[in-house]
């Protein structure tokens, strides 16, 4: 039936999925903010540091993996690698829903990490691409003004602002005023998430036709990369940050997930030589559904095992 859905004419209106994404980001921000208001800022510093380190290290590791094992050209490799250093809010939200259905508590720091991890990978990708073009004496087709626009956008894109805005609201609002907005931002959350996953699933399904294009190596990469980085993420969550099972699972999900909203257009602008079908197929058609169906339970299982 899922296959039917994909092949069918049904298409959720684009504005609906955008609206839902906005709602979910604000909601998860508010939830995070409410909890974080009980926490001292100092306590958040380790999570923030880890988020930055992951955002820098993951795309570099991914890049060298693709170059050494696969036989992709370097610029396509950078474009793909960058996606794995950033995060997917959709995957993160699904993980939260998963934990809540399982009645597992989790720390709220990963919500901040989600906001932070959107940006660093994009900068790393930009720098890698520049240095490759220099080293291999490729002429850069990238218009200069684009590069500046990109750096700015990497830090101020919509998702980040909505998340931080939500956190701020949750953090500073009084309990009384929260009460009046929570029916909207709290009670509806899971239902809206349902529709979001339906939309995502359909979008991901439409990418399946492009699988042949990606080739066996890349599809393998799109599955093994998240498994490895997910497990490393869980270990960091458990040993370095000292999180509970739920929190460690979320750090794993952050590490494992690949961005499909913020990074693709950034890479399209920064590396026009790369083929967008490759990275879109991988992030949206392979890694996202893999994480939702197999990855999240796996990272959760691993987190349980460590405890």
């Amino acid at each position: 039936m899922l296959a039917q859905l994909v092949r069918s004419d049904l298409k959720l209106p684009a504005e609906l999925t955008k609206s839902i994404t906005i709602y979910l980001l604000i909601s998860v921000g508010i939830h995070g903010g409410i909890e974080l208001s009980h926490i001292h800022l100092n306590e958040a510093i380790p999570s923030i540091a880890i988020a930055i380190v992951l955002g820098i290290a993951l795309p570099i590791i991914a890049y060298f993996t693709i170059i050494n094992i696969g036989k992709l050209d370097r610029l396509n490799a950078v474009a793909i690698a960058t996606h794995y250093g950033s995060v997917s809010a959709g995957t993160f939200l699904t993980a939260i829903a998963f934990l809540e259905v399982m009645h597992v508590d989790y720390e709220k720091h990963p919500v901040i990490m989600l906001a932070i991890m959107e940006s660093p990978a994009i900068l790393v990708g930009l720098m890698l691409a520049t240095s490759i073009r220099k080293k291999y004496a490729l002429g850069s087709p990238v218009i200069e003004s684009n590069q500046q626009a990109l750096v700015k956008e990497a830090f101020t894109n919509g998702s980040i602002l909505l998340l931080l805005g939500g956190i701020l609201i949750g953090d500073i609002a009084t309990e009384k005023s929260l009460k009046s907005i929570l029916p909207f931002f709290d009670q509806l959350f899971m239902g809206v998430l349902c529709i979001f996953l339906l939309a995502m699933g359909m979008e991901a399904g439409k990418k399946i036709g492009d699988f042949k294009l990606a080739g066996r190596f890349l599809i393998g990469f799109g599955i093994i990369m998240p498994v490895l980085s997910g497990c490393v993420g869980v270990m960091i969550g458990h040993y370095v940050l000292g999180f509970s099972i739920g929190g460690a699972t979320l750090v794993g999900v952050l590490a494992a997930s690949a961005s499909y909203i913020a990074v693709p257009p950034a890479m399209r602008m920064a590396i026009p030589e790369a083929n967008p079908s490759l990275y879109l197929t991988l992030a949206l058609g392979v890694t996202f559904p893999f994480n939702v169906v197999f990855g999240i339970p796996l990272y959760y299982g691993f987190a349980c095992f460590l405890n």
Partner: protein
Amino acid sequence: MFSIKRIELVIEAVEKSNVIRTLKKINITSYTIYKHVGGAGERGSRDEIAFGEKFENVTFVIACPENRLTTVIESLRPILKSYGGMCLVSDAQWVIH
């Protein structure tokens, strides 16, 4: 009515603000924009996907005097080279109001 050149530029949506900046540099501040344009070409098919409106096309229509045509085209060419797209030029009459 007088003769002008009608430039029709179909380009990826990510490049929209870049095109506007480029036109401004050569003092072209009049243009018409169509958004949410789909298409297919050498670089595959482009269409609104729910989570990536930036993978659509936009179309610019620019009416410019004949003697400015080369300037406009030469400044747009690098963008076309990097990101693909289509640029058509045709003759038209501008109705004076």
